């Protein structure tokens, strides 16, 4: 295999769930050596996803967690009992040979184990220490706990998702676990670049809630510059376009159960295309209507379009509108986009997991001409790479590794 873009970089990785593990998954896909550390006493339960559903063919077990596998492909797995003196000594040795220590525990966990940033720096002067925790390492809420939906709630992202006169719809998944992981990966890469250029390591304090807050830019500026809050009657209506930029712009029912299609007219030209579509939803007499005219009674306009789409299949509507040059997409179900969409070809690679066998996982949505990404091996077993890592990095013999295991150190 050709060397990866990040070959030679070693990550001492305490991350779990998606918000942390997603970051080091990216690094591993480009050849970084990610050494994932788990707790032998509690059988890896630092990461609540280990051993949790979904399961392939219904087979459960500590090594059978589908989400855990998805987020940890290509990593090595070792165990360390941080309550033991010897375990902490071994960690210091690993840190000495690593470029970066990563974690997404609650604030202060590593410090309580004796591994503050200052201590790590004493062990390895140019170490990068990257944390991702809900409210970060400073500020009045630093002790507060979060997971994805709470991050999305306090940052404004949940509020901004919904229909009028309804509770917040929010996000039906942990968008900020994904996106927190993306920002964590960006921060780690920036720190690696900084270190390569200056020789200097650093501490990265990523507060996932704060990251999420920055994803509301235009709404924040409308507040700070114009004094207009987003909490106002009729808002949010997130299937419409923000600030009345486009109309029509919505999600409409189609023939069948729970079938939907999204349509957006970006401008007057799209509107003209829609209203002159043979057999289309709009009376061509309205083809010249301006944006303001279309928005004068947008509810009625939407009802007209919905009555038309409801008589048709979602892919039929998609084909018809796309042929006319109008942005339109079926609301795709998981099986439709993962199994039948040519535009996801190669996106969900098959990896080989030692217990689950062949499993498809989320891949990377980019092709690199010089340094392609690779995902081949599934997530590591609990302590599955102890012999390799402790032998190769620390020079321990298989007998010594076995003894550490017997003593409950690993």
């Amino acid at each position: 295999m050709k060397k990866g873009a990040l070959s030679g970089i070693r990550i001492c990785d305490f991350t779990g769930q998606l918000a942390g593990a997603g970051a080091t998954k990216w690094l591993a896909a480009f050849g970084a050596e990610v050494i994932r550390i788990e707790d032998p006493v509690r059988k890896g339960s630092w990461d609540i996803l280990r051993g949790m559903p979904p399961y392939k063919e219904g087979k459960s077990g500590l090594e059978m967690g589908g989400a855990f596998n998805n987020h940890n492909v290509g990593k090595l797995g070792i165990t360390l009992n941080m309550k033991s003196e010897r375990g902490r000594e071994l960690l210091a040795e690993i840190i000495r040979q690593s470029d970066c220590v990563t974690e997404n525990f609650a604030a202060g966990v590593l410090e309580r184990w004796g591994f503050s940033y200052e201590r790590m720096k004493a062990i390895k002067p140019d170490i990068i220490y990257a944390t991702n925790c809900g409210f970060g390492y400073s500020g009045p809420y630093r002790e507060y706990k979060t997971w994805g939906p709470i991050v999305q709630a306090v940052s404004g992202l949940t509020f901004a998702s919904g229909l009028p006169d309804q509770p917040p719809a929010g996000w039906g998944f942990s968008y900020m676990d994904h996106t927190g992981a993306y920002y964590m990966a960006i921060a780690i890469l920036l720190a690696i670049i900084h270190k390569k250029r200056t020789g200097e390591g650093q501490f990265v304090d990523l507060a996932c809630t704060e990251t999420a807050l920055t994803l509301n830019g235009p709404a924040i500026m409308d507040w700070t510059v114009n004094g207009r809050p987003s909490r106002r009657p009729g808002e949010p209506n997130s299937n419409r376009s923000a600030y009345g930029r486009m109309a029509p712009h919505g999600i409409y029912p189609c023939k069948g159960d729970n079938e939907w299609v999204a349509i957006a007219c970006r401008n007057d030209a799209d509107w003209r295309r829609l209203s002159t579509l043979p057999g289309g939803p709009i009376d061509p007499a309205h083809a010249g209507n301006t944006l303001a005219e279309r928005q004068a009674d947008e509810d009625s306009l939407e009802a007209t379009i919905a009555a038309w789409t409801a008589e048709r299949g979602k892919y039929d509507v998609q084909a018809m509108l796309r042929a006319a040059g109008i942005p339109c997409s079926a609301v795709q179900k998981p099986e439709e986009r993962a199994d039948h969409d040519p535009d996801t070809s190669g996106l969900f690679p098959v990896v080989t997991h030692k217990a689950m066998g062949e499993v498809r996982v989320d891949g990377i949505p980019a092709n690199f001409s010089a340094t392609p990404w690779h995902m081949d091996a599934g997530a590591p077993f609990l302590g599955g790479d102890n012999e390799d890592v402790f032998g190769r990095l620390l020079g321990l013999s298989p007998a010594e590794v076995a003894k550490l295991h017997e003593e409950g150190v690993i």
Partner: protein
Amino acid sequence: MTALTGIRVIELAREPAALSGKLLGDMGADVVLVEPPSGDPARHIPPFFEDQPGPDRSLWWWHHHTSKRGVCLNLDTAEGRDRFLALISEADMLIEAEPAGRLASLGLDHDELLRRRPELIHVSITPYGRTSANAQVPMTDLTLMAGAGPVWSCGYDDHSLPPVRPSDGQGYYTACHYAVMAALTALVHRLGTGEGQFIDVSMHQASNVTTEGGSYNWLVARETVLRKTGRHASSFPTSESQVRCRDGIWLCSGVPPRAPSEFRRLLEWVRECGLEERFPEAVFLEMGAQPETCPSIADIGIKDEAPAIFSAGRDALVLIAESMDAYDFFIGSQNRNIPSGIIYAPEEAFEDPHFRARGCQVEVEHPELGRSFRYAGAPYAMGASPWRISRRAPMLGEHDGEVFGG
């Protein structure tokens, strides 16, 4: 010096790519934003300063183009292309969201650019990837989110309501996050080898791998998740997780208690609020608080009292919420180690004392207006290579002289 000091990025102005240049610019890269002489259409995205449209008044533009310099180039002319190639000859990165085929038709695609500048990292962001049969299909953030999976998972328990596009612009953001991860990964490679490369990011694919369980429940177990109000889509029934507080503000109460310690803390809170008398189900919280009587989720359908114990947790949260304002609930629960989150509007989050204490508000000077405005701050706090907005978004052609000389 910060992480990207001295790194020159050329960004061809297009709405879907805007955040990627900002992320690099705010970390110290010298980002040159290239617009056509008529200006990027994104200058007309609302909202506007004082609600008056104008090419230098879009607040969308202000937010997404911080820390960039701006130049005008007409790539349809030989002179414009020469100037662009001159820029590329000194650039480290090119980030663009041009329609597939456009740069090739101008003789400015990656093969030509990398031939002239082998160190260049060229990142392309297109709706379906450069080689897709659908490369010319038009896309907006709405249709992107609908086709790629996020919309399927978002909305309400009531499926007569349409699924919901969660917030605005996030599909484009996801593509930009991948573009930046890709560009920085390629930069690490280049620092070691001197080798540049071309990277083809698909917006549709980026959101396809940003759906959490939407994808992997299907990939692993062939289960299709279904949308639910304000909580994870799933293929099985789950308890509601939002409560409306006394002041009408909604709050994410998270997962109701399951462990004895969690039932204990909630019961104590009910008592402190003086609500126990009004809450006969408190007896079930007591059962949950005892390790001997606390059921596991697997006991539902086996032990008669299990459902009552679990639903008492949710009922207690609803009762407390009715008795206090959302902010007090949020602080009160978190101080009792019961995780919850107030559902803030963006401006409310921006004014919250925690985020202010961490520096989420930064002042950016607008010399042309003789004023400064508060902008959203850093997405991460980096000790040695700090994030910083170095300048407000450029006006049309503002830096032509500075960048091109004479």
